[in-house]
């Protein structure tokens, strides 16, 4: 029996857990008691993080599609096939006809190599990953305001906060260990404010629950700020010394009086004032947000509004005081940090900056593309139009996670070459020309970066199943086959290259991570202890910038034909497209069937009872599933978790994009619900 310390592969909390290995296979899981995030606890997913690793449906060897069936092939044949097809497509259509989707489930080292593969081997900046669908608004919005798009505090600091303002995050279900600290703070007397149209579980414990209309977050935040200014609660010293552009922001802010905002959001003006006071008057105030803020056509504006709020009150740059986007995937922070994005290299160094490009060119030894690449949704659009010829997807399932699945499916089918590299044959892989079997988190080494910027080692516990290989090895072999030698003896060598090229990871080396429980970036040098909270004396970009934002309503308001608002999200026992949870006995059993939450008064109007089958239709598609009648959703709004391939919520969702970062508006679209 061996016990291997590693990191949970589910959410961004990044809990430390031991994998128990008996007779060469995993026999259990236990939490690390001294871990700074989970302190001996785990959620239901963490406790069951081992079972899928040896599931019979794991991909065990490479497959190539031949007509309608998948033929088992050797690695040489599979990689040879991909290499020659990619080279041909690149030669005929140019490097920008190829795109890469990297993975927030994979390690930092793998994301770095994938981004190097796209830029140095293929010669394109067309690389993106699922952060586009979750926190691209954060990366974009906070880059312009603060200069750094990440959680500013550490998770353990939450316990000492006095006011907790949670907007658009279903924290108990999606970041259980963050919720654990929120409860500890409440126990110590903190005030909890929750803003969410749904009566999520956390709202039961809030002192104030603001149920604003879906998609009116900017207005709500502007109203709160207007009230803060009107009541003289601004941290004037902070605004003067640490920020710029306040005056132009203030001009717009004047229009958002609590009464005006009440009209937009449906929140009583007095409640807006109350929240303003509660949030502004306590020094240790923490603001948390997640998909409820980011997944809108105004995602970036929403994030900027949050940033404006913390700057206005000076609630940033201190322990237990800051702006905290809760990142979703186990390594979505890391995948962004590693530059698996179309406009930046690792460490958010801009592709368009010639000095940065020169630096990467010197180490990588090739000319690098100057133009920013395509985002995820643009890739799909170009594929649909036939302008994009090949797509290489590592550890993602866009068919289920992207909005408007029919469109995505058609786009994938139009590709000349689709390569999917995954641990299971997911929905997207069913359209792939080549499928490469990857090793799971328990079968490889590397690092994950959690939502509090903590870079932690994951360690190989067992040998990869079948002929599967760690993603980084696959990328290295393919790259070498395509004529660009990638030769690393282990993931520690890759991290050394990351550290060389990436200032915020400058002191991150595996031997430093091998003892202790991780380091938090920025960590610029090998003697640097890491940074528990950001922006202490100055913002990453120098001065914080107030960005004027204006309320823009959702792209698709309800109308006569589609009278209800659909909002989507996740549930506790499932994770994203459920490739892993769906293959875990007790997780699968919790909520085996898809459902739609309907308010009782809507149910009465529609003449549906609990567990009745209903048909839900939007402009883009239609699905059938059972109704779950609950007051969790307000009247006129329905909620569907997007996990289920038998009734994919994303068959309905709106692909309208935020103009700046191209995140789709997954949180609001118009639907009609009909009984069956």
């Amino acid at each position, binding site marked *: 029996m061996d016990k291997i310390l590693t990191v949970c592969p589910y959410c961004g909390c990044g809990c430390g857990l031991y994998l128990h290995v008996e007779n060469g296979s995993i026999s259990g899981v236990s939490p690390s008691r001294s871990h700074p995030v989970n302190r001996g606890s785990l959620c239901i997913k963490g406790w069951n993080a081992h*079972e899928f690793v040896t599931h019979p449906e794991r991909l065990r060897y490479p497959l190539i599609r031949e007509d309608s069936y998948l033929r088992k092939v050797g690695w040489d044949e599979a990689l040879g096939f991909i290499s020659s097809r990619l080279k041909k497509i690149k030669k005929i259509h140019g490097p920008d006809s190829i795109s890469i989707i990297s993975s927030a489930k994979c390690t930092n080292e793998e994301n770095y190599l994938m981004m190097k593969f796209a830029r140095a081997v293929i010669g394109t900046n067309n690389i993106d990953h699922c952060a586009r669908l979750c926190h691209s608004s954060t990366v974009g919005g906070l880059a312009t305001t603060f200069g750094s798009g990440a959680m500013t505090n550490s998770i353990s600091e939450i316990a000492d906060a006095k006011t907790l303002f949670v907007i658009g995050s279903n924290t108990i279900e999606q970041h259980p260990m963050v919720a654990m600290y929120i409860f500890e703070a409440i126990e110590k007397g903190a005030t909890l404010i929750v803003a969410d149209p749904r009566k999520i579980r956390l709202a039961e414990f809030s002192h104030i629950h603001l149920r604003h209309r879906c998609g009116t977050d900017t207005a709500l935040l502007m109203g709160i700020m207007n009230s803060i200014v009107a009541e003289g609660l601004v941290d004037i010293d902070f605004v003067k010394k640490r920020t710029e552009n306040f005056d132009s922001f203030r001009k717009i802010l004047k229009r958002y009086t609590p009464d005006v905002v009440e009209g937009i959001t449906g929140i009583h003006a007095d409640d807006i004032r109350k929240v303003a006071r509660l949030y502004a008057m306590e020094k240790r105030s923490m603001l948390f947000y997640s998909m409820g803020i980011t997944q809108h056509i105004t995602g970036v504006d929403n994030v900027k509004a949050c940033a404006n709020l913390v700057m206005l009150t000076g609630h940033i740059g201190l322990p237990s005081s800051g702006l905290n986007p809760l990142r979703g995937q186990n390594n979505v922070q890391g995948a962004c940090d590693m530059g698996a994005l179309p406009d930046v290299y690792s460490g958010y160094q801009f592709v368009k900056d010639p000095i940065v490009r020169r630096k990467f060119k010197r180490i990588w030894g090739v000319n690098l593309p100057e133009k920013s690449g395509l985002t995820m949704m643009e890739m799909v659009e170009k594929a649909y139009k036939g302008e994009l010829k090949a797509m290489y997807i590592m550890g993602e399932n866009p068919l289920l996670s992207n909005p408007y699945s029919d469109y995505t499916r058609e786009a994938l089918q139009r590709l000349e070459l689709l390569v999917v590299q995954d641990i299971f044959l997911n929905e997207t892989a069913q359209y792939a020309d080549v499928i490469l079997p990857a090793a799971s988190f328990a079968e490889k080494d590397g690092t994950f970066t959690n939502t509090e910027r903590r870079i932690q080692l994951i360690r190989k516990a067992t040998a990869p199943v079948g002929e599967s290989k760690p993603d980084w090895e696959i990328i290295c072999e393919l790259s070498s086959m395509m004529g660009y030698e990638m030769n690393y003896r282990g993931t520690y060598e890759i991290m050394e290259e990351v550290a060389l090229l990436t200032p915020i990871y400058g002191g991150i080396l595996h031997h430093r991570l091998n003892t202790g429980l991780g380091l938090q970036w920025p960590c610029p040098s090998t003697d640097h202890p890491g940074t528990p909270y950001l922006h202490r004396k100055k913002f990453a970009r120098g001065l914080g910038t107030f960005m004027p934002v204006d309320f823009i309503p959702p792209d698709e308001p309800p109308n006569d034909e589609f009278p209800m608002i659909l909002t989507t999200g996740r549930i506790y026992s499932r994770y994203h497209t459920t490739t892993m949870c769906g293959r875990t006995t007790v997780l699968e059993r919790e909520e*085996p069937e898809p459902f739609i939450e309907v308010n009782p008064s809507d149910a009465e109007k529609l003449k549906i009872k609990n567990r009745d089958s209903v048909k839900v239709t939007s402009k883009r598609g239609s699905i059938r599933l059972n109704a779950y009648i609950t007051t969790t959703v307000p009247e006129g709004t329905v909620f569907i978790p997007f996990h289920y391939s038998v009734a994919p919520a994303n068959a309905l969702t709106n692909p309208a994009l935020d103009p700046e970062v191209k995140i789709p508006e997954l949180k609001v679209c118009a639907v009609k619900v009909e009984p069956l």
Partner: protein
Amino acid sequence: MKPTELILYKDHLSYWLRQLRKERELIGPLRGEETDIVFKSVENIHDIVLDLPAILPTVKEFLFPQYEPMFKYLMTDEVVDLRDNTKRVIFGVRSCDVTALTLLDKFFLDGYKDPFYEERRNETVLISIVCGRPEPECFCAGLNTGPYLEKGFDVQLTDLGDRFFVQVGSPKGHSAVMRFSFLFRKPYKADYEDQYEVFLSSKATSQKRISLEGARQLILSGKVKDDFWRMISDKCFECGGCVYQCPLCTCFTVTDRVFGDIIERVRLWDACLFKGFTRLAGGILPNEERYLRTKRWFYHKLIYYPDALNGFGCVGCGRCTIACPTKIDMASVITRLKVTAGSEG
């Protein structure tokens, strides 16, 4: 049978364990990251941690693993038994866990004998160490489930500084000690005095008292209404941590895995805190409301366990206090139970 009592000098501990390891897998408490302690195979005997905190990980998994392959069925109609028959000796076990095993024995072996548990149990020798420094979470002393046991152990050690006071309490323990009798000597009067000193001080420091019997009587009196369980369960994350970490929780589910021509049957830890645990055909969930599940867990520990197995389903190990993200653990729930029932007369 009065346990055989001996003295083992710490200088001879590694020699003894090394001899035991020649025949068995030696499991011991080793340092994980930071202050973590984990039970795993001992590579280097000198890495075994002797200065241990009171609360160690449960050793339940060595007898009843979280994921346990049971058998393989081949399409040729052949069945391959996958029962684990590794011989193990586990060093450093806590008394509370030893007590828990005597109850698990009743559960798994009285009447129908669970062959998987039986095999592992028969092949495992436990060397427990009397706990000298209880942690704020644990409360074995008031329950007589520790820190010092009179019976039920294979070998019990009491740390006397430079030597261990050794008590042998079972034939398995006897064999593990007596074959190396040259390492041990008979205790002198001073040894007994030192041992009594440790016994007293460990008793004196174990101050946390939780009366399971008192809680049981309160529940049976009908004074504890469902509102109490609603209040207790409202923060439950349904993680299953209390169940997984409890040395006395035994729920499992069984699943079949089809690998081409081979079907493997596996059993896995399950938890009554999950709403799917009692899912019926047609999607009916008798315990959909969270409080019903929390209530049942406490009822199982405090009512059903004593009724069926003549012992509480709790040994005061304090692991649920650590595992629960929102502190819905045995100790604090009983405290709240008494306060609530008290205030309502």
